């Protein structure tokens, strides 16, 4: 008797989402914040695939998960380019130091 149901997967994804959010909120290092964003995207993906599995919609959820992964790759590429540029200008990637636009 399999006792793991949809709710188990949703719980796992909620915990991952919370950890990722915590990472985004508390870290000062720009690259670590990016890692938190990746964690959040993974949590969302688990939800997509779990719902695709436990419902009678075809594989739409899985296709959407692939789109999320592609978008994540694009986001990381651009964000890292920005981080490198930040380092080029300020010699630091501490997000608290990047306040050039603050009045």
């Amino acid at each position, binding site marked *: 008797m399999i006792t793991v149901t949809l*709710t188990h997967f949703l719980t796992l994804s909620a915990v991952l989402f919370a950890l990722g959010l915590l990472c985004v909120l508390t870290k000062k290092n720009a690259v*670590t914040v990016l890692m938190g964003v990746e964690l959040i995207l993974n949590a969302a993906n688990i939800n997509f695939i779990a719902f695709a599995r436990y419902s009678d919609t075809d594989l739409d959820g899985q296709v959407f998960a692939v789109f999320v992964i592609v978008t994540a790759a694009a986001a990381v590429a*651009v964000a890292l380019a920005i981080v*490198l*540029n930040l380092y080029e200008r300020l010699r630091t*990637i501490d997000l*608290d130091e990047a306040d050039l636009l603050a009045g």
Partner: protein
Amino acid sequence: MTAFDFVFYVFAALTVASAVVMVFSRNVIYSAVGLLFTFFGVAGIYVLLAADFVAVVQVMIYVGGILILLLFGVMLSQRVTKVELRTGTLQLVPALLVVGSGLVVLLRVMYKTGWKEVPAAEFKATSATIGTLLMTDFLIPFEVVSILLLLALIGAAFIARKERKT
């Protein structure tokens, strides 16, 4: 407890534990290694959910691509020799409060909602179906996301290169 349950709990524990390591480690490299194991754990969860294609994509793109890119980011933007691979944390307590209450709300909603749950169908290889869906129902999103990826890569290369003196 069936094998399915056992494997689920193993992968869930691996995922959550390495995510905790990633979030609470002060060393960026340790965070990256934690993230590596999180990605592998999530790939295992995908396999359990009968998403073999997405699991392989997860391993190839996240582990083989995104994580390597993140490590490049760490290496290129820190003085490795001076051991500055640290990340500070700030406002841990308010963040924990916000995240904790958000998590409680999320879980309450999840448990209160009566999800319409269909018993999981028998496992079938998904690659062929996903390929067909991408070329039929999802053709427009597929093309849009390809263009987005192309633009993002060109943009990233353009932003990241050193400014040339003219």
